[in-house]
Structures are given as C-alpha cells and as structure tokens.
C-alpha cells in the first residue's frame, strides 16, 4: 500500500481553510446560553450551548468593550461572529464580534434595519443644523412628569434664566408614544418663535426607549426646521432619534447646557469684546500717531531751513568765486598793464632824445671846429701870401736909401728926359715923400 500519511498539522490546517473559506461560516447569527463565563481582563473565553449542543466561543477585547450588558452564566444571548478552527487544540469555535441579550432580539433587529435604511438615505450624515447660540424660546418635548424637564429647567435657570422654556408634554413610553412625540415636534415646528427643540426621555430598557427608535419620530426630527437636541436614555443608549438629531446630549442637563450659554459669560464676552474694541482702536490710533510722529520728527519739519541751507552756502561760494575771478581778471590785466606801462616808460624816447642830443652836440662841435679850422686854413693861406708879398715889396729896396720920383702926373720918372726944369716932382722915400721943384736938368751920357 502506498498510502500518503498527512501530518496532524497539515490536516488541521486543511480543515481550518475549509472553515475560513466557507461563506456561511463567515457571519453566523447564533443564539444560545452563556456557559463557563468568567470575566477576564482582556479577551473572554466561554461557551454557548443549548439543550443538545455546545460550542466554544471567544470574544476579543475590542468586541467585548462594545457589549452594553454584563454577560452572566446561563444568560441567553444573541451573537454574531465567524466560525474558525483553533489549530493548537483542533477545536472549532465562534469568534464573536457582537453580542446582546436574547429576548429583545426582534427589536434589536428592527433597530438595526431602520438604522441601516436611514443611514443609506443619508439622514445621519446630513448636515446638522447649528444651534442658536442665544435662544429666546426653547421647546422641550418630553414627559411633563419626568426628571428630564426638571433638569432642563433647573440648568437653564441657572445658566441663562432669560430663555423661555416651553414644555410640549408628550407620552414617551408605550405604543402611543411615537405618534405623540411626532405630533408635538410638528406643533413646535408649526410655530416660528422657537429657537431650539429638545427631545428627551430618561433612561430605561430598550423597550422603554423604543418610541425614539421609530421611523416616524426619526423623520419628524429630521424634518424639523428648528435644530433638535436629543437626550434619550442613558449615555450608553443610542437611539435613532439621537442619531438623527442635530446634537446629542448624554443627559438632560447636558442638553440644557448645549442649548443655552451662561448669561454672565455672555455679558463678560460682550464686555471683553468692548474692551478689545477699545484696545484695538486705541492701538490703531497709537500706531498711527507713532507713524505720524515719526514723520513729523523728520528734520524736514524740525529744521526746514536745511532744505535750502546748501543753496545758501552754494550761492555764497559762487558769489565769492564770482568776485574772486573778476578780481583775478582785473589783477591779471592790471599786472600786464603795469608791465606794459613799465616797459613803455623804460622805452620812452627820452633816451633817444638824449642820444640824439649827444649826436647833435657832437655834430655841432664838429661844425664849429670844422669852420674854425677852415677859417684858420684860409688865414694861414692869406698870411703866407701876405708874407710872400712882403718879401717882394719894392719898399724894401727903398729902405736901403733908394727913392723914386714921380712927376706931377704921378708917373715915375725913369729918365732925365722925363723931366724939365721947374717941374714939380715928388720924391718917394721909404718913410715919406718930399715935394720939390727941378732946378736943373742935366743929361749924362753913358
């Protein structure tokens, strides 16, 4: 025989896969009696059984935390979960993710169904109406006799006594409750003098709270023009009304606290706002004043003369340069002129005149000398001639004793024949003449 033997692990793993893949075993609705229950700190391990059978059950902490009741030995419960195999022991067991007590199971189912339907319609996720922050009139639909209205009135009086609470008494339990609640919600909505609507009921069993899980109530709340605060049951109870309402309050007191502010707080807020306005405006003014002051501090305003100071200096400087340059021009011209005048004087014809005077002097002297020489020369010539004449003078002969005789006619008597007796003659001697008369004439022969 060539049979292959499986290991236990392989088989168990195979069986587990079979369980896990089975669509029916993935979500099982199971009812049974709790057995072997002992509260453990985290995950819970117990069994579910009926008269003939028993199954191991496990509930992890995350799922068990959501359970709203305390499981007890022998308690009949409704659970949902999946079936799987715990390989270590080879046991199959139910992994419970939801558990609630049996007996309300039908209501619970109805609740779940409605919730699913309304959720699909978007009633829960529709935008919530904001609450009036400072309501004047608040309608409260609740039982006139319960603690709910009392708590709301007390809280409101304490916080915001100026809000008018108007009770719309409603039956909140039993078969008539739902329609009564709807009637009152509609009545409130027929008026337009309410700011807020509170719907409330005290705690109780799911049956007690059931009217608030009814569709007509849900729709009435959803249709309300006035924002709705719902406070139904205890904090752990979540009704459809709570889900549809604009705000859910854990308690009636909380509902009132949500509905109204604290009057003194409001007064303080206003006061604070006022202070803030003053401060903000003062700051604004201070800022602007500073900004303005900064500009006003500019030297432009403190010493406006600085605007033209530089000009004053510049003009003064230019004036100085103007006069200096003219002065310089005049001085230059003056210097040049003085040089010229100096040269003019140096080169005045005075020297020329002096020179010419000297030349003239020389010429004059020369003139005089020359004429004197000339005359001297002539004199010399003359003297020479006169001397020569002197040497030749016939008078020199006479000076040796010679004389000559002239007749009356003045003719020199050379021959005896030239005279006759009794002629008047004149004897010329060297130093004079003598007049004589001829006494005798005698001719001599030679």
């Amino acid at each position: 025989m060539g049979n292959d033997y499986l290991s236990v692990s392989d088989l168990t793993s195979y069986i587990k896969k079979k369980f896990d893949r089975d669509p029916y075993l993935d979500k099982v609705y199971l009812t049974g009696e709790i057995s072997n229950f002992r509260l453990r700190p985290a995950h819970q391990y117990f069994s579910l059984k009926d008269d003939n059978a028993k199954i191991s059950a496990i509930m992890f902490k995350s799922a068990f935390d959501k359970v709203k009741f305390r499981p007890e030995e022998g308690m009949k419960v409704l659970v949902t979960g999946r079936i799987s195999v715990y390989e270590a022991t080879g046991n199959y067991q139910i992994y419970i993710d939801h558990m609630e007590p049996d007996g309300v199971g039908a209501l619970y189912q109805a609740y779940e169904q409605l919730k699913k339907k309304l959720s699909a319609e978007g009633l829960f996720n529709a935008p919530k109406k904001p609450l009036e922050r400072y309501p004047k009139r608040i309608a409260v639909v609740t039982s006139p006799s319960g603690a709910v209205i009392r708590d709301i009135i007390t809280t409101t009086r304490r916080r915001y006594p100026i809000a008018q609470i108007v009770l719309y008494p409603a039956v909140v339990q039993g078969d008539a409750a739902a329609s009564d609640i709807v009637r009152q919600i509609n009545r409130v909505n027929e008026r337009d003098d309410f700011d807020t609507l509170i719907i409330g009921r005290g705690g109780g069993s799911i049956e007690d709270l059931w009217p608030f899980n009814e569709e007509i109530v849900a729709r009435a709340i959803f249709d309300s023009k006035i924002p709705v605060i719902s406070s139904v049951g205890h904090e752990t109870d979540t009704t459809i009304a709570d889900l549809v309402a604009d705000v859910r309050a854990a308690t009636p007191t909380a509902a009132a606290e949500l509905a109204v502010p604290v009057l003194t707080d409001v007064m303080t807020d206003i006061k604070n706002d006022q202070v803030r306005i003053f401060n903000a405006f003062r700051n604004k003014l201070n800022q602007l004043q500073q900004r303005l002051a900064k500009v006003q501090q500019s030297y432009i305003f403190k010493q406006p003369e600085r605007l033209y100071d530089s000009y004053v200096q510049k003009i003064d400087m230019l004036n100085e340069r103007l006069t200096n340059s003219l002065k310089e021009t005049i001085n230059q011209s003056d210097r040049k002129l003085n040089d010229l005048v100096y040269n003019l004087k140096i080169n005045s014809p005075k020297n020329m005149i002096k020179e010419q005077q000297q030349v003239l002097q020389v010429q004059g002297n020369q003139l005089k000398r020359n004429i004197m020489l000339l005359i001297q020369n002539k004199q010399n010539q003359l003297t020479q001639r006169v001397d020569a004449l002197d040497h030749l003078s016939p008078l020199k002969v006479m000076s040796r004793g010679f004389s000559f005789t002239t007749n009356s006619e003045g003719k020199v008597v050379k021959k005896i024949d030239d005279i006759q007796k009794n002629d008047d003659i004149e004897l010329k001697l060297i130093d004079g003449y003598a007049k004589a008369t001829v006494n005798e004439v005698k001719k001599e022969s030679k």
Partner: protein
Amino acid sequence: MAEKASFEDNMNKLEQIVSELEQGDIPLEKALSEFQKGVKLSGELQSTLKNAEKTLAKEMTDDDSEVAFEKEESEDK
C-alpha cells in the same frame, strides 16, 4: 422679529468687528466707523441682555395656550 433674531447676528457682527479691528490693517476711517459700530452694538447687546426678563417655564396646552409649568414642577419636587 428682526430685532429678536439679530442678537446672535449682532454678537457675530461684534466679534467680526473685534477681529477686524485687532487685525489692525484697516484704514483709520473704517476703523473709526467700525469702532463706533462696535461700541454701539456692544451697548445694545448688553442692554438687550439686561432688559431681558427672567422667565418661568411654561407648558403648551393642546389648545396652543401657554400656561405656567413651574408650579407643577415645584410641586413635583
């Protein structure tokens, strides 16, 4: 009714004015008018609250008449 409805509006306006003024970058003239509006508004709001009377809870009867509820309530206690 406009007066009644406007308390929250006015509160909002007041808050808006405050934040506008606190942001500080609005022109002076605007700031001045906002400031005056704000002062006036805050005065009005305060006065509205002061003047509002304390009320006793009432019950709306089926024939739409409001009747005192407080007595009943205090009797309940």
